[in-house]
């Protein structure tokens, strides 16, 4: 008994909090592009916040539930499907049919007890470039059957006061969705910021950048004016991190996302603060962003604010469950 895939959607992959401690052998942590939405979806079904869930991207899938399953969908709002941001008991025989994303780009569908997939190198995340991890190292496709690790977990929901559509009257607020665009993303100046000419330095902060279509889980390409350097010297390949913004010779910046390479030979113009990466991850191609300069002090404030807000939401969910 399982969840059957009738239509896979644009890109639906299993993701958790990623595999850490392997960047020295060239493997980035990967994992959910929006770990905040992942944590909320997991908490809503009583899972550990880092449990693996399905990351649904821009165009949603269609699933058939073959047994009673407690699910929650958080992150981007999609047309159709289940009510968002709350636990929903999907009865055996229910179909989950999702259209396009209407706000945000990525939603997370968590099931109570998690999916039955063996962890690899400490994670159930799908690493697409290496074709390993998650569900056979690939996105879901038509006909796949996802088994549940704990089929009895739906019983957890028994004590809840349910509405007629098998959900509850309360919900958890979304944290990372854009209220309006362009979204504001904070960055530190990168190591090579000063090597860009003054026009490029100004343009980086003045431009409303558009997420280009050739963006993916490895990186978001940003369309706008090309950024030129005043020094033409080659950069010695060096390390990168989640949120590094590098500028190849084309002058078109690339923001490194979850599945990024661990080293790079392009100049690094900026580093996106960790608190803002999940918000950037919620932009679909065509979405817009502008960058604001900040320092490590402000980066820490933004990070602490985000963590406190998430902790409060998780407490609220626990309280709603009567814990």
């Amino acid at each position, binding site marked *: 008994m399982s969840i059957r895939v009738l239509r896979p959607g644009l890109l639906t992959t299993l993701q958790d909090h990623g595999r*850490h*401690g*392997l*960047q*020295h*052998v*060239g*493997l980035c942590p990967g994992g959910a592009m929006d770990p905040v939405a992942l944590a909320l979806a997991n908490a809503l079904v009583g899972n550990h916040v880092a449990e693996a869930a399905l990351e649904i991207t821009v165009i949603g899938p269609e699933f058939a539930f073959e047994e009673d399953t407690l699910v929650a969908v958080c992150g981007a709002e999609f047309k159709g499907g289940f009510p968002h941001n709350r636990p929903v008991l999907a009865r055996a025989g229910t179909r989950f049919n999702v259209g396009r994303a209407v706000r945000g780009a990525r939603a997370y569908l968590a099931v109570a007890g998690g999916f039955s997939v063996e962890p*690899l*190198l400490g994670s159930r995340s799908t*690493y697409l*470039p*290496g*074709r*390993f*991890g998650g569900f056979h190292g690939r996105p879901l496709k038509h006909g796949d059957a996802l088994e549940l690790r704990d089929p009895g977990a739906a019983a957890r929901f028994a004590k809840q006061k349910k509405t007629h559509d098998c959900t509850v009257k309360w919900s958890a607020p979304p944290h990372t969705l854009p209220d309006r665009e362009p979204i504001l993303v904070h960055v*530190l100046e990168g*190591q090579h910021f000063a090597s860009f000419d003054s026009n490029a330095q100004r343009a980086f902060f003045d431009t409303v950048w558009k997420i280009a279509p050739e963006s993916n889980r490895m990186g978001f390409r940003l369309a706008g004016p090309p950024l030129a350097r005043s020094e033409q010297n080659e*950069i*010695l*390949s*060096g*390390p*990168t*991190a*989640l*949120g*590094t913004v590098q500028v190849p010779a084309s002058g078109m910046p690339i923001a490194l996302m979850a599945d990024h*390479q*661990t*080293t*790079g030979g392009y100049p*690094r113009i900026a*580093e*996106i*603060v*960790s608190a803002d990466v999940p918000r950037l991850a919620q932009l679909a191609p065509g979405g817009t962003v502008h960058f604001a300069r900040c320092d*490590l002090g402000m*980066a*820490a404030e933004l*990070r*602490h604010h985000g*963590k406190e807000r998430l902790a409060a939401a998780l407490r609220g969910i626990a309280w709603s469950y009567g814990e």
Partner: protein
Amino acid sequence: MAKKPIEPKAVVPLGDCAAYIEFADKLDLDVNEFVQRLAAAVHARARPWMRDVVPSLGGVALHYDPDHPDVHGDALEAAAILVQECMKEAAAEGEDAARTVEVPVCYEREFAPDIEEVAKQVKLAVDEVAALHAAGEYRVLMIGFAPGHAYMSGLDPKLAVPRRASPRALVAPGAVAIANEQTVVYPYAISGGWSVIGRTPLTVFDARREAPSLFAAGDRVRFRAIGADEFMALHK
């Protein structure tokens, strides 16, 4: 011979969860060896707030949890102090603890789509290109670009060719390639811009293996020429 002391040139935040301690902004093999020993020393301290210690060509990156209770204040400063503490250890001229990895490579034409072009460019016979490559003693300078993808120094300068004008859409897993004065082994089918002159039957990165990566930064590497039969026998 007295060497100039190696000192950090820059401490650069890579966002708020990582720092890059840079020792050289140009390739310097002495600095690179030092960086490998430094990364090993930092890694051995196993600080609970440290997530990853990543040596690269001219420095070491530390990825950390800036809010870990053991950080006591500023994480960037804590990372810089930790590196300073390990500097002496890394500078000590100890015995070379690097291991040697032997890599069988088949240089026959069907495994080496670019070897004839390289031979023409460097004005050598195809066999000579293969023999020179297999005779070299290599050192892994950095792992990057893809999991297990090792950049190695030690290529005979006679084989130095620039990167290909247009990258190959897909190279075979285990493809052995050269550019400038370095050689690489592509871990899996991937787009690559280096000239492919052979292929190893070994799996370069296997997430299911106890040590997933065949190579580690700092390793010595030797290539051993094999025929197509041995390639097939070793290839799973």
